[in-house]
């Protein structure tokens, strides 16, 4: 067993200016130069950000390694360095074997080309030889389940077909080392299961996998070992369950309160905007909620324009990314146009509904239009909370101490007759 990946002291520095104005015009940079010459004393005005600082680790051949950490912790930078998309500022890494990366499915797809043509294009961008792709074409098309449309330009594909084809190509790439970044954030639950299954196959067939994800369930399931990155440094490195538990308990997860006023995953069409969201139980913001009592999702929002009947809506997802439910306030108070102003709506999830585990919430403000839900403001996966069962015997688990499988875990009423 030798190391497939050996990283020693990898560091990557960004200049803040470099991040802010990622590109500009020549004039801007000329004025900048002129300014810096004119005011020489303040020359060291730019600040440095270390996206990655002195990161060292080894991945033995055949290991499936998880990488977790909050946004901006350096996960993507690490992957970009290992895939040679960008170079480190200092340090080095040795990689033994052919590397395949799934930084995003469908990289390089061209909308005007047909499915077949894109398989060749995408495959060779990902490092396959044309001969190899030709040999696997049938397999790829069958995996994607799009036989009938293989000669149709992909711009006519539904987004589902597009993603399936893209993933099929990537899944048939046969690298010795696979680097994966959040592919599982796209697609429906079924598709995500197939992604995980395929990755599991990869791991079991003795290939090295480095898997970056926010999906703790998937990390815990697929990876024997996990690295937690925080502020560009390795904070924890060990068996996945330990590191995942440490991460969730240390409150570095997405958290159960989130200010949405200038978070970047938030969008709005100008009719309404989200302000903040939190998870409450018994009047307190909670990271971990007791399964036996109602859980409140408090959503604060501002209605900006009058004249629209709007209502708040939430979508609750499981840690695997499956939708547990969608719910919106159907009360008649939302039937008439809403006056501009600030509102706080709370959705109460009844006790004994969700199973134990981690859940995430996507809030939105929507309206009804010709039989559809029209979103006007929303955010994805902005808060998360844990549901736990203290195991005192009064929940649906009764005196059973193990875990019950399933997304929901209602406390049912059972009747019994003797007949």
């Amino acid at each position, binding site marked *: 067993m030798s190391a497939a990946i050996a990283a020693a002291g*990898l560091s990557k520095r*960004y200049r803040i200016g*470099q991040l802010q104005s*990622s*590109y*500009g*015009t*020549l*004039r801007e*940079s000329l004025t900048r130069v002129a300014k810096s010459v004119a005011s020489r004393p303040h020359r060291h005005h730019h600040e440095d950000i270390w996206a990655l600082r002195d990161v060292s680790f080894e991945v033995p051949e055949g290991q499936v390694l998880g990488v977790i950490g909050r946004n901006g912790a350096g996960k993507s930078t690490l992957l*970009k360095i*290992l*895939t*040679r*998309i*960008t*170079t*480190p500022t*200092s*340090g*080095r890494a*040795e*990689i*033994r*074997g*052919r590397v395949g*990366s799934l*930084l*995003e499915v469908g*990289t*390089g797809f*061209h909308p*005007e*080309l047909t499915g077949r*043509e894109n398989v*060749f*294009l995408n495959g*060779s*961008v990902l490092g396959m*030889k*044309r001969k190899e792709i030709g040999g696997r074409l049938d397999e790829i098309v069958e*995996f994607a389940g799009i036989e009938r449309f293989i000669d149709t*330009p992909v711009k006519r594909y539904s987004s589902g077909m597009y993603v399936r084809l893209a993933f099929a190509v990537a899944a048939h790439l*046969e690298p*010795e080392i696979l680097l994966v970044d959040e592919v599982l954030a796209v697609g429906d639950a079924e598709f995500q*299961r*197939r992604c*995980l*299954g*395929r990755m*599991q*196959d*990869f791991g079991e*067939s003795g290939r090295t996998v480095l898997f970056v994800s926010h999906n703790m*369930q998937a990390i*815990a399931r697929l990876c024997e070992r996990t690295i937690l990155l925080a502020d560009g440094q390795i904070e924890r490195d060990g068996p996945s369950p330990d590191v995942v538990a440490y991460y969730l308990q240390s409150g570095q997860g997405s958290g159960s309160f989130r200010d949405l006023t200038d978070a970047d995953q938030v969008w709005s069409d100008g009719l309404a905007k989200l302000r903040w969201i939190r998870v409450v139980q018994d009047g307190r913001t909670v990271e971990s909620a007791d399964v036996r009592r109602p859980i409140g999702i408090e959503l604060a929002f501002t209605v900006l324009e009058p004249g629209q009947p709007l209502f708040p809506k939430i979508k609750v997802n499981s840690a695997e990314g499956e939708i547990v439910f969608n719910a919106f306030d159907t009360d008649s108070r939302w039937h008439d146009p809403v006056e501009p102003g600030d509102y706080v709506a709370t959705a109460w999830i009844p006790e004994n509904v969700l199973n134990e*585990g981690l859940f995430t919430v996507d809030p939105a403000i929507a309206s009804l239009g010709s039989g559809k839900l029209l979103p006007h403001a929303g955010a994805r996966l902005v808060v998360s909370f844990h549901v736990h069962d203290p195991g005192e015997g009064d929940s649906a688990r009764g005196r059973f101490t193990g*875990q*019950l*499988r399933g997304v929901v875990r209602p406390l049912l009423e059972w009747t019994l007759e003797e007949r």
Partner: protein
Amino acid sequence: MTETNLQVRPAPPAEQPPVADPQERSERTFVIRPAPRWPHLDLSELWHYRELLGTFVWRDIKVRYKQTFLGVAWALLVPVFTATVYIVVFGKFAKFPSGLTPYPILVYAGLLPMQYFTSALNGSSISLVSNANLVTKVYFPRVMLPLAGVLTPIVDFLIGSLVLIGLMAKYSTWPKGLEFFLAPAFILLALVTALGAGFLLSALNVRYRDVPYAIPVFMQVLPFVSGVPYELSQIPTKWQWIFSINPITTVIAGWRWTVLGAHAPNPGQAAVSVAVAVLLLLGGLAFFRSSEPRFADTI
């Protein structure tokens, strides 16, 4: 814990990806380290990725006239139309002399390499930015993109040459001798020039999006200083030397010489053009390679 929900869900048909044949298993170890201070070009790596270059060219050709009504006919219409304007304005009104060959064919033969150069320069300069999704997601030698940009327009050039053959038949001007076989060398000179400038401009374009605005301005002047509407031999010799700093002058003069039997370019002037083109290529490549480590971060 008797039961856990961390079990694998029904995985897709448990077909095991065949473990690569031990012999096939590439023992390619590569080392990632900070960008070198001095740019160099890894030729063995370029060879390793040669198929990708073909794929890029193939893609660009495929996509070029998709969803156009006239399709590939544009490759004929554009030079024919431009040539008509030149012939009417400079030939009929301004009465430019035509030297050894009829004026229409002189102009058309000049325009063909000119338009190849224009497309090649445009294509290679925008190549990095228009493939930004690839540049930020996958590794491959970035020089492939400008290189594909100068190779793709060769197809249009060949199609446009059909009209030239037609004109040659009409005016019965055929290549005079063995110099005909030198014709590709002059197109290669145009390619090298476009590639050198393309390396430089595509790398600049990653940082400064002024490039696509500046190129057309430059391109409006270029045909007139490169001898498209006239023959270089018709201007005073001392000026010819200055003109030959622009390699396209030699490209056009040489192309007309080899294909139409026009005046041969002065070897000294041709040497100046070739030297400029080679310097541009080396300088452009060095600049490209030294900016390359920052492409993905700034694009």
